[in-house]
């Protein structure tokens, strides 16, 4: 039986992620844990998160989970969600600037800074909250059976500036274009919440639950 560890570091609604994974894969054992050893033993790792990056990084370090995530990122299928995606990058401008895990080179900015840098008026309120379309910029096993430009549920005030094409498998647009899904080797990450994105989101989680970590079809 394969085990999926959902990393618990006190940042957000983990129960929904776990319930959604159980819902899509009744053969998987889903555990919510902050024990580094349990994460190490799992076959797959989900790194969710909500809230502010400074607290997020502080809790990961306090629980010694930062090193465990880096290990997982080097060895098995890893899915970052929302803050769990932003934390994979080098640096976020949130909380006056915080260094994150540094697995992916790139920058996390506030939408308002993004709008002013692009010289455009805000297209709507911040946070970017609600359902938006995701363009599948690259084919990837986690997109299997999900139509291109499907709607996913987002809630965020900071966004990942468009990363190079080889890393960006999903793009979204909210005034400015941004990277909505990242993939590199055995790592995938989404800015949106698949566990809250109804059919499309559940399909993505089902795809992750059986993904072997190879990026080919």
């Amino acid at each position: 039986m394969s085990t999926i560890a959902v990393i618990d570091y006190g940042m957000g609604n983990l129960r929904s992620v776990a319930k959604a994974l159980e819902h899509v894969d009744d053969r998987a054992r889903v555990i919510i844990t902050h024990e580094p050893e349990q994460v190490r033993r799992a076959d797959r790792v989900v790194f969710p998160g909500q809230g502010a990056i400074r607290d997020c990084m502080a809790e990961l370090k306090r629980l010694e989970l930062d090193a465990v995530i880096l290990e997982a990122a080097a060895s098995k299928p890893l899915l970052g969600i929302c803050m769990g995606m932003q934390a994979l990058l080098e640096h976020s401008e949130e909380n006056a600037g915080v260094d994150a895990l540094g697995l992916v080179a790139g920058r996390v900015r506030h939408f308002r800074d993004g709008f002013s840098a692009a010289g455009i008026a805000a297209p709507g309120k911040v946070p970017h909250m609600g359902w938006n379309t995701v363009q599948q910029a690259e084919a990837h096993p986690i997109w299997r059976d999900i139509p291109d430009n499907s709607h996913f549920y987002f809630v965020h005030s900071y966004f990942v500036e468009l990363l190079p094409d080889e890393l960006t498998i999903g793009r979204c647009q909210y005034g400015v274009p941004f990277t909505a899904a990242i993939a590199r080797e055995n790592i995938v990450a989404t800015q949106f919440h698949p566990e809250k994105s109804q059919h499309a989101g559940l399909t993505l989680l089902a795809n992750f639950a059986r993904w072997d970590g190879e990026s080919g079809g």
Partner: protein
Amino acid sequence: MSVSPSGLCRRIIPCLDVDRGRVVKGVKFVDIRDAGDPVEVARRYDAAGADEITFLDITASSDDRDTMVHVVEQVASEVFIPLTVGGGIRKPADVRRMLNAGADKVGINTAAIHKPELVRECAERFGSQCLVVAIDAKRVSADNEPPRWEVFTHGGRRGTGLDAVQWAARMAELGAGEILLTSMDRDGTREGFDLALTRAVADAVPIPVIASGGVGTLDHLVDGVLQGGADAVLAASIFHFGTFTVAEAKRHMASRGVPIRQLATGKAEA
């Protein structure tokens, strides 16, 4: 498919009033009728394309509040769209409990009026994204005056002296992530949202506004977005009693140019 320049869709949110674990809806808060089991109703709305679901716990006795936690746990295990829970939230521990049960957002109403700092405290601890401040507003200006709305509590019976538009702006400053704005004049009337109120609040805050109170027709939903400037529209009785389905509401809004999320099943391609 209609897509706005931002791509972001406007949301349709069915609201379920829950009393001791059962869904009810009062017309102007009297004449309460039983409309079913929360899990079943939530599942039906999810299948029909609801973008979120809001539960309002109207249980009078705090002894029965645990029931709501179980309702949220059950719904969150079966329905995978955002869930908001409000009613009887007084302290950060109440917010924590609902988030742990599976709620994505928690609504605070009266407690914010008694202690505005609660909003800041909860925003700092749990993040603005999960904090909805609910405002019940009633027009208090005469017809020949510029419109002015006051914040009310206790189902619209007790005034607070607070100006609703200023209050919304203050809540946003303290860290609210969203405003759920209910017109107590319109609630239960089916005459449509108070559009002037909705517009005044939507223009005054940088965060999303959910319009609520008074929906009787599908055009009312469209008006809430296009005229009121709401980011989301909330309705209860038109959906509960089958006047319209959520899918019909979405088709109608799309036909009027409102960007909405189409159903994944492809049934609502209009």
